[in-house]
């Protein structure tokens, strides 16, 4: 009797442990119970800011890169950029040439004649404000983070300057500010967008190649744009889920 009881209790404990363990595992797996939003939509947030960049419209004038430097006090040396413009030139022989002299800030120039060129286009680059940001993931102290609106920001009074985030960004969008020695990056002009303005790069774009908006707002220009165009993101294999999307992004772009 006594013995049986003991056994029962042991069985109970064993089963209980199995059950809890099983539940833990199951709750960790839950394969398709969560919705996957193709257009990077976030139910839990009030706003979920993003940007569309229309490569077809970009004329490579570099005003975005220039305005960004002025707006955000980015050092003017040609190796610190929050946004820059790359010029891709595919020659008839198949070779690919990428240039971005001074971040394209002074406008673009072309060294090849139209006869040699197979195709050519501009790609404005900026922080992709990834939903799975590798940079905020690796910050050891919580000095770079995603704001409730999905904007990747830096806390300049808290950053220790370890540079791990710079290494972690697959897009090369971060730099260490030469004066303050802390990480700096595109904030999607957080001070502007929370104040009803558009980011400075979009403000000065002569051809409206950039469209800022709220991905949660189905009627926003951004969401409408995403609906109508075949958009693409940079380095999708990184699974960073960027909130910056490109229209007419060519396969040559890295």
């Amino acid at each position, binding site marked *: 009797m006594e013995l049986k009881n003991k056994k029962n209790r042991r069985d109970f404990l064993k089963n209980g442990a199995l059950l809890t363990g099983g539940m833990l595992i199951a709750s960790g797996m839950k394969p398709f119970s969560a919705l996957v939003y193709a257009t990077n939509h976030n139910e839990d947030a009030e706003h979920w800011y993003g940007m569309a960049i229309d490569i*077809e*419209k970009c*004329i*490579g*004038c*570099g*005003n975005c890169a220039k*305005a960004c430097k*002025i*707006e*955000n006090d980015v050092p003017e040396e040609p190796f610190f950029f929050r946004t820059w413009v790359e*010029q*891709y*030139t595919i020659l008839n022989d198949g070779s690919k040439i990428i240039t971005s002299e001074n971040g394209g800030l*002074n*406008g*673009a*120039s*072309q060294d*090849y004649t*139209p006869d040699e*060129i197979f*195709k*050519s*286009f*501009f790609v404005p680059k900026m922080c992709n404000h990834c939903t799975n940001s590798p940079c905020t993931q690796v910050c050891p102290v*919580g*000095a*770079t*983070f*995603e*704001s*409730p609106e999905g904007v990747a*920001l830096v*806390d*300049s*009074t*808290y950053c220790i300057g370890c540079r791990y985030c710079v290494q972690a960004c697959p897009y090369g969008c971060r730099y260490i500010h030469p004066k303050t020695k802390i990480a700096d990056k595109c*904030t999607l*002009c*957080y*001070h*502007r967008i*929370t*104040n009803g*303005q558009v980011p*400075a790069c979009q*403000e*000065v*774009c*002569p*051809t*409206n190649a950039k469209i800022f908006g709220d991905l949660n707002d189905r009627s926003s220009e951004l969401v409408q744009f995403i609906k109508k165009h075949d958009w693409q993101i940079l380095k999708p294999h990184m699974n960073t889920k960027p909130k910056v999307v490109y229209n007419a992004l060519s396969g040559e772009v890295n």
Partner: protein
Amino acid sequence: MPKHIRRLLLLFAVLITLFIIVRQVLIPDSFGQFGHYRGLALEENKAHVARYVGTDICAECHWETMELKTADMHAEISCETCHGPGWKHIEEPEQGQLTIPEGREFCGTCHSRNPARSASLIAQVNLSDHNIETNCSECHNPHAPWN
């Protein structure tokens, strides 16, 4: 348990407690408010002053230029694209801190011929042979190129 082990444990206990106390003191106030970061950092990021103020504000005073511009091909371009940020100018217009762009190269940043530019999107000229004798603004008004 021998005495020295007890002392050792005590030492470790003291060190750990000390660390916990120091940690509590040093954690910034707003840390963890929204996530693993200082909540105040959001406000600090917002506090940055915008340099580019937008075309609508320019129109309040420069309505003539504005009218000219909206009627022509440069309608879509923001004043500040060519003149630079207006945050100081709108406070003290007389200071004239804005840039008045000049030279053929300036128009060329958008209009010089480049195969990477779509021809249907922007009219392009060869800076080296399109009416090289004078400045562009002699013939094209920068605010209304066909005027």
